[in-house]
Structure formats: C-alpha cells, structure tokens
C-alpha cells in the first residue's frame, strides 16, 4: 500500500505508542503583535531545550500565508521533538504546535504618547503534546520481546511513563502560561511564565 500511497500520516508507524499528554488551544481576537507572539514561543522552546539557535534545524514544516481583502491568514506548523534526560532510548517527547490566524490586519496603537505598529485579528495557537514509548522500535522489531510489549509498557514501565507524562504536561502548560501572560489572559499556574523579561501585548 505504501508503494502506491507514499504520503502517510507520521503516526502511522508509531501507532498506539504515542500517548497524548496535553492537548489545548488558546484563541484570541484583538490587537496584538503577531511577530512578538511567534518570537516568544520560539524563545520559550529554545530555553527549554526543544530547539537550537540554528534556524536551519528548526522544524517549521509548514508556513502558509494567504492574503485576502479581509486580512492575512497564516498556517504555521512546528513539529518539535526532544530526548528526555532519562530513558532517551526508550522515550521521546513531542510537541506539535500550530498557529492559525484569520483576518490579520496591520494597525497602530498609541501607548504613552508613542505610536506602535501592531496586528489586529484572530489568532489560535493549538498545541498537542505527546510521549512516544518504544521510540527506537526495540520491542517492535525484536522477535522474542514483541509479544511481551504490552505487559512491559502497562506493568513494568507504568511508573516511568507517569513520570515522563508529568514532565511533559508541566512543559506544555508552562508554554500555555507564557502565551497567556503575553496576551494578558487569565493565568492558571501559580507562577507567571516569562513575565519578568518579555513584554505583554500592551508593552509593559
């Protein structure tokens, strides 16, 4: 089949071993700086070790911009992976980030008597965080261990999986907090993320 249909979903091979840890989105419709939001998410990912400073390696797999009379639409897809500090052979972390904007127009606002260029429109940041178990496919390919894979994952690795899930969900919700802080939305976590250094949408 693969011969005739070479385009496949990237989870086809992974199958059930990808555990979705966190799935959330932030939708916002008002005046904000799209570039700042884009940079902020990138910086957060760099600081947390999800990407390097080398832009050529950055996994921005899709960038689409459509210009229409009512504004610009963007579709931006980032597919990030990270090796955990513990159990790097067996586990892998994944961050799927999707930016979608609708009707983005340039606008100007005045803050403290100075004009700033901003964007007006609707933006949505969708994040899906996943934990991949048996990343190297060790169990899948091993003839003797293959039948015991389920037992191994559900019984013996249960605590390890819970541990990795906690780390990953922590990361994911901290990113949401950083976005919420920038957009001045309600914060959920006790500690504000990225607020001390990066300005919010109202540049304070």
């Amino acid at each position, binding site marked *: 089949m693969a011969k005739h249909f070479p385009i496949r979903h990237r989870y086809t091979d992974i199958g059930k071993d990808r555990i979705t840890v966190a799935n959330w989105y932030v939708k916002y419709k008002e005046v904000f700086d799209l570039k700042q939001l884009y940079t902020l998410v990138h*910086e957060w990912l760099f*600081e947390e*070790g999800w990407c390097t*400073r080398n832009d050529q390696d950055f996994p921005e797999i899709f960038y689409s911009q459509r210009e229409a009379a009512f504004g610009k639409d963007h579709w931006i897809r980032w597919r990030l992976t990270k090796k955990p500090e513990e159990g790097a052979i067996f586990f892998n972390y994944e961050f799927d980030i999707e930016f979608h904007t609708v009707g983005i127009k340039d606008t100007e606002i005045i803050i403290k008597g*100075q*004009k*700033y*260029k901003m964007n007006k429109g609707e933006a949505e940041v969708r994040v899906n965080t996943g934990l991949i178990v048996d990343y190297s496919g060790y169990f899948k390919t091993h003839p003797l261990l293959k039948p015991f894979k389920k037992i191994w994952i559900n019984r013996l690795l249960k605590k390890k999986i819970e541990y990795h899930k906690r780390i990953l969900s922590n990361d994911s919700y901290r990113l949401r907090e950083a976005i919420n802080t920038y957009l001045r939305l309600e914060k959920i976590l006790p500690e504000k993320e990225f607020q*001390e*250094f*990066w*300005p919010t949408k109202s*540049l304070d």
Partner: protein
Amino acid sequence: MVEKKRKFPAIIIKHRGFFNLEKVLKTITNWFNEEDFEDFDITDYKYKIPSPAGAEYEIRMKGQKKVTGYVMFEIEVILWVYDLREVELIKDGEKIKTNEGRIIIEVFPVLILDWQKRFGGNKFLQRLQDFYHNYIIKYKIADYWDDMCLIKAGQLVKFVQESLSQEVT
C-alpha cells in the same frame, strides 16, 4: 569528520532594565583578548532600524583558544538586544548616559578535540581515535578538559553579569 566537538548546554543571561551596551561589548571583547583567544571574531552584527519601542541588535562572537596540541576551547557568545533606548540617569549626583532595554546573552562553550586533524586520513586512524578517546583519555576529557572549558565560560558569564550590574556570587 576527525575533529570531535563536545558541545555543552548554553548558559543564558537575561536582563531587563538599565545597562550599557557598549560596556557589555567591551567586557566580552576584552575578556577574549585577555584570555588569549587567538581567533576571536565578531561573526554577525545585525542592527534593526529603531521602532518606537527601541532598536534591535543581534551580535554573534566567537573565539578559539588552543590549549594543547590536541585540545581547543571554543566559546560562542550571542547577544540579542530588544527595545534599546538611550536614557540619561543621575548616579551619585552625576548625569550619565546609558541604555534601557532587554538583553539576552547566550554563551555556548565547545570543547574541540584533535583540532590539528592528526587522526585524519583513513578509517583505521579514526577507529584509533575513538579508542583513544573512549579508553585512554576518557577521564581526562570528562573530568578535566570538560570542566576547564565550562570554567572558562563561567568566568566570562561572571564578567558579563558584573557589567550588567547583576548580583554575582
């Protein structure tokens, strides 16, 4: 590839508020010169036309120091400056010109082994190099050269923090 690079995680300094960019740049360049980094170079210097929020800079510097005939330290420094504005402050009764904005300084230490490419040539020599690194000087690399490289980067970070008037231990 014969030259082996051991990269360490970046050391990041963030500062928001008053600082003197010229002083920070001079501190970094002076440190590289004083520490005998021979191939010091400012590889990138980007400046963006100031917006009402301020100017933007991206400056990349790199220096290499030959420690022995086999070991070399490489330190890369990247400065990201946002919303940089000139301001006047009164300090100890005197007016001084300084900057206000946000600055991120990233220091990337790298340990380069076999910079002279002595083990170049054929696969046998490369295997020999792997053996040399993994069995003969394994602990010398991990316990000594890695630490030395990180200490050098730490020294630079301390100087930079001092130039930013941050608390240094």
